[in-house]
């Protein structure tokens, strides 16, 4: 049924945007982490979204089914170097390799994710109002 399908479409976006928010939070939390389990400084992570389509075309032929996260990828760009020979993670030349997390970029992404989340919440509320209105047909 199409009302529930709309809710699932927006629900998939809420999941995706929340995951995006989680990665942003993780990036910001690790903005100064010079060690990771894999060795080396923390690398910025980013989720990649792709439009999802329905395989079997039920309904009126609309194949869209929201959004899905294809994976979380690491940003390979090198991080910043800080000269600090006293630091335990300093290399032979006295430089510490810091993560490639840019606070400003993360904040901008955070606002974008937050606004997208709000937009999808609005869709869900609106879809619910429409469904309620449809239930009122013939009640008058």
């Amino acid at each position, binding site marked *: 049924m199409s009302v529930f399908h709309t809710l699932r479409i927006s629900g998939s976006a809420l999941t995706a945007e929340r995951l995006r928010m989680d990665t942003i939070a993780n990036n910001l939390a690790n903005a100064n982490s010079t060690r990771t389990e894999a060795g080396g400084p923390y690398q910025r992570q980013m989720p990649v979204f792709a439009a999802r389509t329905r395989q079997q075309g039920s309904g*009126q032929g609309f194949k869209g089914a*929201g959004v899905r996260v294809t994976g979380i990828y690491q940003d390979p760009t090198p991080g910043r170097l800080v000269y600090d020979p006293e630091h335990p993670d300093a290399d032979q030349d006295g430089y510490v390799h810091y993560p490639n997390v840019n606070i400003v970029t993360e904040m901008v992404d955070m606002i974008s994710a937050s606004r997208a989340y709000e*937009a999808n919440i609005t*869709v869900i509320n*609106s879809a619910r109002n*429409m469904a309620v209105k449809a239930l*009122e*047909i013939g009640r008058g």
Partner: protein
Amino acid sequence: MADFNLLGKTGDLLHRALDAESLRFQVRAHNLANVNTPAYKRQDVEFEAYLAAELDQRDTNGLRRTHARHLSGEGNGSGAAPRIVTDRHTTMRVDGSNVDIEQEMVALTETAVRYQVLAEQLTRKLRQLRTVISERVG
């Protein structure tokens, strides 16, 4: 072959318009779900223009409107179906997406309001019918 339809032509049109608005709402929800998807192209539903064209052409007595101000005949309006179109010609962001969150929200609100208006009209149509059946007013 008499199509026994209590709601008549109005009911049929309202029913189809509600279906179209419902589909449109779903398409807009999909657009908004993909607001952060790179290279996503927004989709839309075309319906009113097809319906108007169909209503213009289908005159039961075989007459055609040759002027925009002529009265249209009794078109029965079955056939025109909503079509989903993808807007591939515009780009809004560097990543190739053309979903404008503001524009999409406005369009979504409009769709929801139109849906409610149509639902309200159908309710009133049914109320009229009920008045006729029950021989009372109100």
